[in-house]
């Protein structure tokens, strides 16, 4: 059995009075691609943001690579190897592509691996090399998503959490981004991905969790969930897209 990399235990998170996560538990093992799916407002982004240290849990713990990181700053989490590619990419638009990548490798541990990481990113996403000195804001949507993932790879992470990589992308581009995520995973990086595009996500992931209004309601392998009647009814429409 592979190592347990991320373990979330009975996590509860609220925005003031609004409870967004209730008693959520999940695991991600080293080497996996795990998908987290569910409808709008289910709490998927909240879960990733809490794991990244942007939000504080009300209850529960987050363990990463054998350490309780529940109360660590984002900086220390990134240093331990857990990074978030946020929803909407959140690139530094007025900075160049290369500057965005440099910022991804800001911490000393990542900086020590800078040259190697940069080569890996340019290998995965050759277009970023071509555009290295252009402004990130001038990239197309697909390229921006590649840069957002590339920036995370620059941190030399063990686990990359990706929030809605397919947001605003055509099905063809989404396919490409998913292929690249699989390639990244095959190089040894563990991936936890939140997706609206459930059909595609269940196809590429090893395991998946389904969330609904702050709870995990189902989990299993991608195939199991694809075959599950409830999931099909709730999320996978006739043409295989969400809802």
């Amino acid at each position, binding site marked *: 059995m592979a190592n347990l990399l991320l373990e979330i235990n009975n996590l509860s998170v609220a925005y003031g009075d609004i409870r967004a996560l209730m008693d959520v538990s999940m695991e991600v093992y080293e080497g996996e691609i795990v998908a987290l799916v569910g409808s709008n407002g289910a709490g998927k982004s909240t879960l990733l943001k809490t794991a990244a240290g*942007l939000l504080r849990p009300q209850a529960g713990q987050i363990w990463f690579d054998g350490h309780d990181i529940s109360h660590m700053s984002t*900086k220390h989490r*990134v240093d331990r190897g857990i990074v*978030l590619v*946020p929803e909407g990419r*959140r690139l530094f638009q007025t900075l160049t592509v290369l500057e965005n990548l440099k910022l991804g490798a800001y911490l000393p541990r990542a900086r020590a691996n800078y040259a190697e990481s940069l080569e890996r990113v340019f290998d995965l996403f050759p277009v970023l090399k071509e555009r290295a000195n252009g402004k990130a804001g001038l990239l197309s949507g697909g390229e921006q998503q590649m840069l957002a993932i590339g920036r995370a790879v620059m941190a030399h992470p063990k686990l990359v959490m990706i929030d809605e990589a397919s947001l605003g992308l055509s099905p063809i581009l989404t396919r490409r981004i998913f292929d690249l995520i699989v390639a990244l995973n095959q190089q040894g990086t563990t991936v936890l991905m939140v997706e609206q595009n459930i059909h595609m996500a269940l196809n590429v992931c090893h395991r998946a969790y389904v969330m609904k209004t702050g709870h995990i309601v189902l989990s299993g392998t991608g195939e199991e969930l694809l075959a599950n009647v409830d999931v099909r009814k709730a999320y996978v429409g006739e043409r295989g897209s969400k809802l």
Partner: protein
Amino acid sequence: MTLIQILINGILLGSMYGIAAAGLSLIFGTMRIIFIAQGTVIVFFAFLVYWLFVKAHIDPYLCLLIIVPFAFLVGLGLFYALFLRAAALEDKNVSLLIAVGLMYLIENAILKVWSASPRGINFSYQGAVLAGWGLRLSWVRIGLFALAMVSGLVVYLFLQKTRLGMAVRAAAEDMEATTLQGINSGWVCAVSFAVGIGLAGVAGVGMATVYSFDYQYGFTFALKALVALSLGGIGNVFGALAGGLLLGIIENLSDFYLSIGWTPAVTYGVFILVLIFLPHGLFGKRGVVKKA
């Protein structure tokens, strides 16, 4: 007086506004507030220069070596003591109100320590003039211009060529995304605030060499810096510097062709017109200031 002389005088005088506006621009970048106490902080440093000159006979330009590092440290201290928690809040009014409180606190501290009477310093080469080509330029005003250009260049190099400067630019664009890179964005904000206060130190030295100043002069000065900032377009240091020079020119033209009494009205008239018709400033790009 020739038009050229007026323009040059304007540029030299406007250098002061430019330095102050560049500081406002940096602080706005990460904190999203107009740091209204900037002018009063500048006056405070001018009083310190006055003290160093009167008590220790230190040449005002030599004071830069003491005042600027001190200002930077004051900036770090102020940020951690007053703004660290407020800067993280969605509601920027909290930071703004702290800045207003700070302004009155410093004003009254100056009043208590140095009294209400205006101060200025008189040093040996203050009246020296560069004459030629039909122009007469005061050396201390050329000094102001040099201070503005050098500090603008230093800040530019810091922002463009250092990793920390790159993090400052990133934080000015998206604080949360900066945090997600593992960057301590509190420290990044503290540094950009401190560089802004360091610029106030430079401006304080400049003020001491040219103006006479009292404890209340700072607020008026901050408003002028704000006008310069609006001319230059918020969010870029060179725009702010250029906006300062332009404001100096406008004021000198108005002093000469209208009258000194009209100049404040012209200044704030320009301010309002720019805000209405060119909200991104004359040199600012659209979309530079995005989400808070």
